[in-house]
C-alpha cells in the first residue's frame, strides 16, 4: 500500500514539475483489411509529421503524441475507434487515414464533440458537407473529375471515352459521375460504362465489351491495383488506346504491377516526388532517409493533414476546438508538400492538381491545373 502511495506521489510530481503534458492527436486508419493501403500510407506520413514536429521542439512548447486506431476496414469500426480517441484519450483533433465511407461515419461525431477532423485522403464531397469542424487535406472528387474530363478532351483529343467503374467503391462511383457530367457537357460521348465489383481481379469481360465500343481513350476510375491489372489485361486483349485514372494511380506499385501495360497512361496527382519546389525536394529526401522509400500520395497527404493541424494550432495558440476550427478555416497559402493549400468555404483544400504520364516506368510531370 505504501509503495502504491509513493508511486502515486511520484506520478503526481512528475506531472507537476516535469514536461508539460503532450498534445494528443488521434488518427483512425484502416491498417488491416481490404483498404489497408490507405491506412498504411496515411499513418506513415502522419507519424513522420509528428516525429518532425517533435524534433523541432513540439507545438506551443509541448510534445505532440499521435494515437492511431485500426478500423479493420470494417463498417462501424471507424465510429467506435473515433469514440475511443475522442472520449477515452481526449485527443484535441482527429486525422482520418481511411477512404471516404469511414470518414463519413466519424464526421458527425467530431461535429457533435466540437473537435476538428482533417481527412487525409477522403475525396468524396459529402465528407466536409457534414459540418464546419470537418476539413480535408486533399482536393475533392468534383474538381478532380473536371480536371480529367478537360484533360481527356483538350490534351488527348478524345471524343469517345469508355469509363470503367468499381461498383461499391464510393470513390470510383463519385469520380466517374463528375467526369461524365463535365465530359458530356463539353460535347464528349461516353460510349461504354462497364462496372466491376470492388476487389475483383478479372476484367476481361468488361474489356471485351469496351473493345467492341471502340473508344478513343479509357478512364479507369478504380484504385491503382485494379487499374494496373485492368491495363495488363487490356493490352493482352489487343486494346491500344490510352488509359487514364484518378489520384489513386499515383503509387509506385502501379508500375510494378502494370509494367509495360501502364506505359503511356495518365493520371491526376496531389503531389509528385519530382516536383521542382525545393521544400518538397527536401521533404522527399528526409522521408527517404527515414524510411528508405519515396513518399507516395497517401503518405504525403497523411503528412500534410497533420501539418495543416499543427499550423492551425500554432496560429490559434491553443488546442481549444473552436479556436482550432477557426484557424483551420482561415488557412491560406499553406506550403504543404502536396502543394499550396488554401481552405475554401466548403472546407476543402483548394490546390492545384498535377497531371502525370508514365514513361519508361517513371512518372513524368506534364502540367498543373489550378482550381477553377
Amino acid at each position: 500500500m505504501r509503495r502504491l502511495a509513493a508511486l502515486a506521489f511520484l506520478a503526481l510530481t512528475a506531472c507537476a514539475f516535469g514536461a508539460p503534458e503532450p498534445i494528443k492527436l488521434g488518427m483512425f486508419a484502416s491498417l488491416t483489411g481490404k483498404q489497408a493501403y490507405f491506412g498504411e500510407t496515411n499513418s506513415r506520413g502522419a507519424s513522420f509529421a509528428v516525429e518532425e514536429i517533435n524534433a523541432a521542439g513540439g507545438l506551443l512548447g509541448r510534445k505532440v503524441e499521435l494515437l492511431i486506431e485500426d478500423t479493420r476496414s470494417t463498417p462501424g469500426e471507424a465510429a467506435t475507434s473515433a469514440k475511443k480517441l475522442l472520449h477515452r484519450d481526449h485527443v484535441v483533433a482527429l486525422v482520418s487515414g481511411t477512404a471516404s465511407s469511414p470518414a463519413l461515419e466519424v464526421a458527425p461525431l467530431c461535429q457533435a464533440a466540437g473537435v476538428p477532423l482533417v481527412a487525409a485522403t477522403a475525396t468524396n464531397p459529402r465528407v466536409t458537407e457534414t459540418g464546419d469542424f470537418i476539413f480535408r487535406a486533399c482536393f475533392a472528387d468534383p474538381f478532380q473529375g473536371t480536371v480529367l474530363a478537360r484533360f481527356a478532351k483538350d490534351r488527348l483529343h478524345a471524343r469517345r471515352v469508355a469509363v470503367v467503374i468499381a461498383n461499391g467503391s464510393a470513390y470510383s462511383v463519385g469520380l466517374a459521375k463528375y467526369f461524365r457530367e463535365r465530359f458530356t457537357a463539353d460535347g464528349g460521348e461516353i460510349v461504354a460504362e462497364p462496372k466491376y465489383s470492388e476487389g475483383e481481379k478479372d476484367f476481361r469481360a468488361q474489356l471485351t465489351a469496351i473493345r467492341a465500343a471502340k473508344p478513343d481513350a479509357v478512364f479507369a476510375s478504380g484504385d491503382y491495383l485494379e487499374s494496373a491489372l485492368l491495363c495488363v489485361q487490356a493490352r493482352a486483349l489487343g486494346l491500344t488506346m490510352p488509359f487514364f485514372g484518378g489520384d489513386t494511380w499515383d503509387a509506385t506499385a502501379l508500375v510494378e504491377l502494370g509494367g509495360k501495360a501502364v506505359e503511356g497512361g495518365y493520371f491526376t496527382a496531389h503531389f509528385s516526388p519530382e516536383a521542382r519546389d525545393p521544400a518538397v525536394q527536401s521533404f522527399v529526401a528526409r522521408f527517404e532517409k527515414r524510411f528508405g522509400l519515396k513518399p507516395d500520395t497517401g503518405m504525403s497527404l497523411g503528412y500534410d493533414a497533420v501539418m495543416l493541424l499543427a499550423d492551425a494550432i500554432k496560429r490559434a495558440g491553443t488546442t481549444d476546438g473552436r479556436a482550432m476550427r477557426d484557424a483551420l478555416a482561415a488557412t491560406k497559402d499553406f506550403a504543404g508538400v502536396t502543394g499550396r493549400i488554401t481552405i475554401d468555404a466548403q472546407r476543402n483544400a483548394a490546390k492545384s492538381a498535377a497531371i502525370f504520364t508514365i514513361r519508361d516506368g517513371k512518372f513524368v510531370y506534364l502540367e498543373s491545373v489550378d482550381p477553377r
Partner: protein
Amino acid sequence: MPRPLLSLLVAIAAALGISAVSDHIDPYHLDVAVGIGINIILAVSLNLVNGYTGQFSLGHAGFMSVGAYLSAAVTMLLGPKLLGESGGTAWQQGGLFFGALVAGGLSAAFAGLLVGMPSLRLKGDYLAIVTLGFGEIIRVVFQNCEPLGGALGLNGIPAYTTIFWVLAFAALTVFTIYCLVHSTYGRGFLATHDDEIAAEAVGLNTTRYKIVAFVVGAFFAGIAGGLYGHFKQTISASGFDFTKSIEIVVMVILGGMGNTLGVILAAILLTLLPEVLRGFSDYRMIIYSLLLVVLMLVRPEGLFNFRRRRPTP
C-alpha cells in the same frame, strides 16, 4: 406473474434506469455497450434458426441490412413529413422510431419468409450456401439502389438509438425466443432439430417450424439492423456482407447451440474481445483469431454450456 415475464419487466426497468444515467457514461463505453446489445439480439435470434431448429443459416446479416435500410428510410423520408420541421417532441420521435423499427423488422421477416421457402427442400451445407446467396443478393440490390444511397451508403440517419432502446429490445428478443421455445408449440423446434423424420412421424409440421424460425429470426435481425443504423448514423451495404453473418454464427456456436444464456455470454465476450485487445495494436486480430480456435478446441460443447450434455452430431 410468470417468471420470464417478470424478468422482462425487470430488464426493461433496468434499461430505463441505465438510460437515465447514460449521460454520465463515456460515449466510447456506451458505443461498446450498444454493440453488445445489438449482437445479443442478432445472436439470440439466429440461435432460434441455427441452434434450436437445427437449420444452418449464413445470411443473418442480409436480414439485418433489410431492417437497417427500411427503418432508416422510414425515419428519413416519412419523419420530416410526420413530425414537421421542428422535429417533434421526444415522445413523437420515440413513436416514429418504434414504428420504423417494427417496419424494418417486418420487412426483414418477409425476406426471412422468402429465404425460409427453400429450406423445405435443402439441408445442411446446401441450405447454408443458399442463405449466404440470399444475403449477398440483398447486399447487391441495396448497393445498386440509388435512392438508398447506392455504393456510398446512407448517411445522416437521425441518432434515435439510445441504450434504452437497445437493452429493451435485447430483453424483448430473449423473452420472445425463450417463451417461444419453451411453449408447448415451441417444443416442435427442438423436435425438428433432433430428428426431422421422427417429428414428422408424430404429426409435427416440420416445414412450418422451419419457416416460423426463419421469419421470427429475421424479424429480430431486422430490428437489430434498425437499431444499428440509427446508432452509427451511417450504413453501407458492404457492412452487411457474409463476414458479418459468419461473425454471428460464431457467437451462436461458441455459446453452445440452442443455449440462450450461453449465446448471450458469447455475444458479450466476442464484442468485448477486440476492444480489450486494442492495447496489443498489431497483434490484436491475431490474438482474436487464435483465441477463437483455442476456445473451440478447449470447449467444443460451447463455451458456456455447463450442462455437460454433448450436442448431438
